[in-house]
């Protein structure tokens, strides 16, 4: 549902599980497309032997499945962030979008800006430098982390 937002941010989404591409097709056709009213817009990848999941450290040998690992990868192919959850708890896609926006801001500023706790687009960033050492309390208040 949020795929257009990722597209607007110039990001691609890939999903991955140990299911075959045939099962992916059936899941799309018989359940997910009914849930969202259209086909799944991104590529549903298959990692049948778990080798990709192992490379990322999220493969569960005991049950032969992949845990909910979510990785944000930058245009250079570097991992900027990840989150791993056990199966019963779903992710918060909005938080992934917020983190992506924050990483993009930092990258576009070429490291001159940083996003403090609770940052989202439109909120204050910090510009790390000698003058800011020991002075964050003067320019940024804790309440800002919790205000929308």
């Amino acid at each position, binding site marked *: 549902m949020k795929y257009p937002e*990722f597209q607007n*941010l*110039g*990001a*691609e*989404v*890939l*999903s*991955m*599980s140990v*299911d*075959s*591409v*045939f*099962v*992916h*097709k*059936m*899941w799309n056709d018989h*359940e997910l497309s009914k849930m969202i009213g259209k*086909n799944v817009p*991104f*590529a*549903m*990848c*298959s*990692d*049948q*032997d778990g*080798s*990709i*999941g*192992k*490379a*990322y*450290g*999220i493969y569960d*040998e005991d*049950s032969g499945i*992949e*845990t*909910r*690992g*979510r*990785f*944000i*990868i930058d*245009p250079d*192919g*570097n*991992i*900027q962030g*990840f989150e*791993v959850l056990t*199966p019963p708890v*779903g*992710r918060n896609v909005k938080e992934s979008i917020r983190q*992506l926006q924050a*990483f*993009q801001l930092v990258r576009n500023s070429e490291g001159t800006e940083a996003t403090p706790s609770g940052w989202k687009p439109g909120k204050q960033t910090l510009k790390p430098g000698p003058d800011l050492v020991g002075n964050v309390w003067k320019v940024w208040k804790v309440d800002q982390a919790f205000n929308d």
Partner: protein
Amino acid sequence: MPEEFKPGCQRPSIKKMNIETNASTQMEAKEARKPMVKVGKQAPDFTASAFYQDKFVNISLSEHKGKWVLLCFYPGDFTFV
């Protein structure tokens, strides 16, 4: 665009990564205990079969170089969350 493939009766063969195909038995034991990847470091590249836009295709992470990628693993199709 990703390369399309025609599905046959066999499951698509797995495109193993170099690091794993070259592994000896001893190495495989080590692979199984591979630690978590690190932030700020290169994401392991892969090529995987995928269902995408009503087709079966092969997709590599490296073909998305120059774009941001959100890679989401999940336990299984037709599970509940």
